């Protein structure tokens, strides 16, 4: 058997012999031009996009209200702040531990409350389980809960129920609903509906159907989500405290407010350590599930 078509013409390139100047025998001129096909094929559109992007960056940088002299002072201030921050001070570790434990309590309670509330909301937001009107309501709750940064939610709760951990717990409940209910609703929409139909065919009432045919299918996901959310809430609880919702964030904001940079650094180090630890633990647990 001959090695087929490519065996054809012997007018191969004599390139290694040098002398690349020799004209190729074909009728067409040697092809020595090549450009990478652009991602945006139309050149006008391409230049509009590139030009627009450059213009946007230049224009926004130029017009943002920036107080340059004040920014220039920053270097010196940074020196002063870091000078004040080192070495970190663990003198008031009592305050530090109290703040941290409060954050932990906030995270635990918010996870508990948030996950509990997420379950009915997730069912409401699952297209395949509930009537249309309920579905839209459920989705709306989730979108609102997800769209507002916990810090915004926190200042509203602080105004409504006062400074302290209660505002923190309420905030993180909303935060948990935004994530857990969304993920859970997606899982519910993916369930194997055959099982539900089997239950219905057996004459099971609505609630039993949910418990026997739907809950077992979403349970593993729910446990994973809960652990993940506990980790997220611990992170977030450090932040909402900055606007007065309790926990170690409040301790940090106070330290900053009093220019106690060495204490602030100590707090930050504890926060970072706690976050790394909780991330590692939660990752390990979720891997085992």
């Amino acid at each position, binding site marked *: 058997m001959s090695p087929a078509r490519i065996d054809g013409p012997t007018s191969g390139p004599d390139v290694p012999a040098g002398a690349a100047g020799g004209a190729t025998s074909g009728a067409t001129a040697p092809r020595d031009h090549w450009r990478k096909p652009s991602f945006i094929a139309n050149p006008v559109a391409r230049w509009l996009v590139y030009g627009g992007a450059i213009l946007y960056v230049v224009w926004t940088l130029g017009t943002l209200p920036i*107080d340059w002299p004040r920014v220039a002072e920053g270097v010196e201030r940074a020196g002063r702040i870091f000078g004040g921050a080192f070495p970190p001070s663990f003198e008031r570790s009592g305050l530090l531990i109290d703040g941290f434990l409060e954050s*932990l309590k906030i995270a635990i309670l918010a996870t508990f409350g948030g996950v509990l509330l997420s379950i009915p909301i997730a069912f409401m937001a699952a297209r395949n389980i509930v009537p249309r009107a309920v579905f839209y309501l459920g989705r709306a709750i989730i979108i609102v809960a997800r769209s507002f940064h916990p810090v915004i939610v926190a200042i509203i709760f602080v105004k409504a129920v006062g400074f302290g951990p209660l505002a923190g717990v309420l905030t993180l409940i909303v935060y948990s609903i935004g994530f857990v209910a969304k993920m859970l609703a997606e899982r519910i929409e993916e369930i194997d509906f055959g099982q539900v139909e089997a239950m219905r065919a057996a004459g099971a009432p609505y609630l039993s159907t949910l418990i026997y045919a739907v809950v077992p299918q979403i349970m593993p996901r729910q446990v994973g989500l809960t652990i993940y959310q506990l980790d997220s809430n611990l992170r977030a609880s*450090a932040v909402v405290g900055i606007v007065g919702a309790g926990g170690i964030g409040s301790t940090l904001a106070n330290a900053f407010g009093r220019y106690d940079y060495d204490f602030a650094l100590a707090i930050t180090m504890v926060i*970072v350590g706690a976050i790394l630890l909780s991330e590692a633990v939660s990752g390990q647990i979720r891997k085992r599930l």
Partner: protein
Amino acid sequence: MTLSDARRDDWTRFSLKQRLQRYAVLAFTLLAIAWAVSSIEVIWAWVWDAPEQMGDLFGRMIPPDPTNLAAILRVLWETVNIATIATAFAVILSLPVAWLAAQNTTPNRATLWVGRFILVSSRSINTIIWALLFVAIFGPGIVAGIVAIMFRSIGFVGKLLGEAIEEIDKRPVEALEATGASRFKVIAYAIVPQVMPTFWAVSILRWDINLRESTVLGLVGAGGIGIILQGAIDTFNWREAATVLLAILGLVILGEIVSAWLRRRIL
């Protein structure tokens, strides 16, 4: 042997060990919750009062007051710019960090640890905490906000990008090394094209997140719409606060739509 000979009528779903494990986990969870409930410093009267207070507050927000809408929208646009510019800079700065933090591109062990240290410190400190620091350094204003978002985003983008670099197909890298290409050219031709999709996906994702984050920078004085919100709340101007909240909601939803569209276009 007939079916009834088996006499297995004490079916349980889990074995004894499994059940004990489950009870232990349950008990631990309940204990944690009990500890938190019993020792948290809240005034329980306020807790029972909270729904009423919330209702009262939302009542005072209605109807939203649009008199300052023009100013609100202008600052909202400024917020978008903060998020976008900060994301752009962060994404560029995260490239060398990702290169340092990926085991297969980092020059040596010391640089690997430098890269990892940058990623961990950037990632574990929240944008708001970064903002506190930069407001103290640069004074209140947009610069502190942009830098804060950048510092947080570098870790996020750098980590995901570094992981993408570690997961690439190594065979093209080997092939280009065999052609005698320099290290830099091997990266440019064999590694960069492979991580490009991740790069765009992560950048868009982070932009979407940053849009949300930039709405709260103002609460610690770092610029953006948060300043107006804070002002409205501090003066108990709840109807204007409602307008701002609605504007933020609109912005975030719009941002999600735009990023979904970009993802479809680019990927």
